[in-house]
C-alpha cells in the first residue's frame, strides 16, 4: 500500500516522539525497536523503512537537536563575541537542545560518535560530526583564521568536545553547571592552542 508523503512524515515524527519516551523511561540499552514500533502503532518491520537501526533512530534525534542548537546559536550570536565566547555559545546552545535527551544519551553518543575505528559507522553520527566541525571552522574563519586548521587541531577539538559530551551526559550537578565550567576551560584551552601563544604559567596575570 502506498502512503502519502504527509503520512510518512507523520509516522516518522511519531516514531521519534515515542522512541524518546521509551528511551527516557527504559534507557537506550533496554529499549527495542519492537517496543517503539508498537508504541507508534506500526508493525515492527515498517519501522525499519524509516530508521534502519535503533542507533540511527537515536542519533537522528541527536542530529535534529544539534541542528536546532545551531539555529539557536545563529540567532543568539551578536557578532561582538570573541572567539572563545562564540565557541562557548555554539557548544552551549547545542547542549541546551540535547538536554531533554540527556537521560539516555551516554550509550548513544558512545556508539555513534566514538573516534575509534569500528565496523559499522553510524552515518547519522558521521554527518553530525562533519556538520559540527564545519560550523566550528566557519566560526574560526570569522575570527581571522584564514586557513582551515589542520587535522591535528580539529582532532583535538573533537576530542575535547567528546570529553565535554561524556562529562555532561553524566553530570549530576544542578543544571549541569559543572559542565559549563568544563566547556569554558576546554574552549579556552583550544583557543590557546590554535592561537599559538606561549604558556606563561600565570605570570602575566599574576603581575
Amino acid at each position, binding site marked *: 500500500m502506498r502512503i502519502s508523503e504527509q503520512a510518512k512524515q507523520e509516522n516518522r515524527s511519531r516514531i521519534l516522539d515515542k522512541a524518546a519516551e521509551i528511551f527516557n523511561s527504559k534507557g537506550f540499552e533496554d529499549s527495542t525497536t519492537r517496543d517503539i514500533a508498537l508504541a507508534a502503532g506500526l508493525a515492527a518491520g515498517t519501522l525499519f523503512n524509516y530508521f534502519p537501526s535503533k542507533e540511527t533512530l537515536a542519533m537522528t534525534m541527536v542530529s535534529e537537536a544539534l541542528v536546532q542548537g545551531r539555529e539557536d546559536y545563529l540567532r543568539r550570536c551578536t557578532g561582538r563575541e570573541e572567539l572563545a565566547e562564540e565557541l562557548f555559545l555554539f557548544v552551549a546552545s547545542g547542549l541546551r537542545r540535547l538536554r531533554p535527551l540527556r537521560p539516555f544519551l551516554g550509550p548513544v553518543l558512545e556508539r555513534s560518535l566514538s573516534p575509534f575505528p569500528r565496523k559499522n559507522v553510524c552515518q547519522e553520527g558521521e554527518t553530525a560530526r562533519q556538520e559540527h566541525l564545519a560550523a566550528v571552522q566557519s566560526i574560526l574563519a570569522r575570527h581571522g583564521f584564514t586557513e582551515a586548521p589542520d587535522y591535528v587541531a580539529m582532532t583535538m577539538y573533537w576530542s575535547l568536545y567528546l570529553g565535554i559530551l561524556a562529562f555532561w551526559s553524566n553530570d549530576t550537578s544542578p543544571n549541569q*553547571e559543572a559542565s*559549563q*565550567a568544563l566547556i569554558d*576551560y576546554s574552549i579556552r584551552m583550544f583557543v*590557546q592552542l590554535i592561537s599559538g601563544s606561549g604558556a606563561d*604559567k600565570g*605570570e602575566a596575570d599574576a603581575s
Partner: protein
Amino acid sequence: MQVEDGRDTETLQMEMLLDALPKGSATDPASLALARLITNISNKKVPVSSFSRIWTLGSLQARVSAGYFAYWLRSRFSDAENKQRLKSEAHLAAALKLFGTMGYMRGAVMKVGQLLANLPEVVPEEFAEVLSALHFEAPPMHFAMVREVFLDEFGREPEELFASFDRQAFAAASLGQVHRARLHSGEEVAVKIQYPGIAHTIKADLRNLRLLLQPLCLTIDWQDTLAKLADIERMLLMETDYGQEAAYNRKARLVFNDADRIAVPLVHDQYSTRRVLTTEYLHGCHINDFLATDPGQGERDHFTRLLTVATYRLYYRLHWLPADPHPGNFIFMADGRLGMIDFGCTLTLSDEEWVFSNEAIQAALDKDLQGLNRAIARACRFDDPGDMEPDRLEVIRQGFYWFMEPWQQEGIFDFGDRAFFLRGIDNVIEATRKGYTRSLPMTLWSNRFTFGGRAFCYKLKGRCEFRKIFKQEAAGAAAKLT
C-alpha cells in the same frame, strides 16, 4: 639562548625565594630544600596555566606564601624518621600543588605572599592593602556564559528579563561578577552572577587538601587546623548561596533608618535566585576614588563614624560579624550616605559565642584581669589560663588590649594614627611567628572583621567617638530587646 635566559630568571627567582623564606630549621638551615621543592612545583607546566586568573604558584609572592605554608607544615614533622619524612614530603608537594591551583584564593594568597616576603619590615599601608585582598574570587565569565546562567536560573536571556543589561561586568564579587542593568520599571540595578559550579570546586579542593595534609600532622594543633579549614569551607559555601545573602541583606535593611545615613540596597526578589542576586544600584565611589578627591578631615570622620555605626549596629542588634573587609563592599555616596553591599560573608554568632564575645569585652572594660585571662584561654582552646605558656598568654592579651583601645578612650579616637595601627600589626606578626595561632574558628572571622574595619579606617585617616558609638549601639540593642 632563550633557554639560558629562562634558567637565569629561574636562578634569580630561586635566590629571591631563598631570601624571603623563613630560616632556622635545624634540618634545613638555609631552607634550600624547601625552596627547591617550591620552585620545582611552580615550574611544572600544567594544562590550565594560561587561563586568566587561574594561577599555579607562578609569581614569587605566591611561592613565598606556599613556602611559609610548607615551612609551617614541615615544622610539625621535623623529628620524624626518614621514611615518614619522605612520605610526608610527597604529600606536602601534592598539597602545595593543589593549593597553587585554587584560583578562587589566588588574590588573597598572592597578597599574603607579598606581605610575608617583606617581613619583618611590614608597613601599615601594606598590611591594609593585604587585608583588602582577603576575599575569594572566581574566574571572569564572558557574556555567553552569563547568558547560560540566566537561561538556567530564569529560563530567559538577560536582555529579555531586563530593559537593558551591560555585557561587561563592572566589578568582581564573591565567587562571581557584577553587571549593571535596568529594570523595565526604569530602576537601575546591580546584578551579581555566580561562576557555575564554583561550590563543587571548593568542596572538592578542600576535601583533597585535608586528605593530603592528614598524614603530616598528628599534634593537637592539627585538630585546630581541621576545625579552621572546616569553618573556611562553611563560610565559602555560604558565600555561594545568594539566596542566603539576600536574606541577610533584607534583615540588614531593617535595622537602619534614613537618619542613620547608611544605605543597604533593596533586593529585587523577582530577579534573584541562588546563583543570581539583583539589588538596587547605589551610586557612588569606592575608597580609593573617594581619597583621590582629597577629602577634608570632616568628610573622613563622617564616613568613619558611619562605618562604625553600621558595623556595630549589625553586631549588637543582629549578633553579626560582617567578616568580609573588602573595601569594594562600601560605597561613598554623593549625598553623604555610606552604602553597604555584599552580605555574602556574614557570620551570625551563636548564643554561646555572643555571650562569650561580650564577656571578653566586658572583662577588658572592667579591667578584670582574671576574667580576661579566662576568656583568652578559652579563645585559644585551653581549659585554663594556667595551661597556657606565660608568653603565649601575654602576647594574645596584648593583642586584645590593642583591640580594646578605642573602646576605652573617651572622646575622639584617631584610627589614622600610624603608631596605633602598627602596634596591632606587630602583635599579629609576633603571634604568628611564635606559632600562637591555635584558636576557636570564630576568631578567624572576628579578626578579619576587626582588622578589616581598622585597615579601612586607617586608610581613610578617619576619626570617630568610638566609645560613645559602641555604648549607644549596645544600649539601642538592649532597648529593642526590652
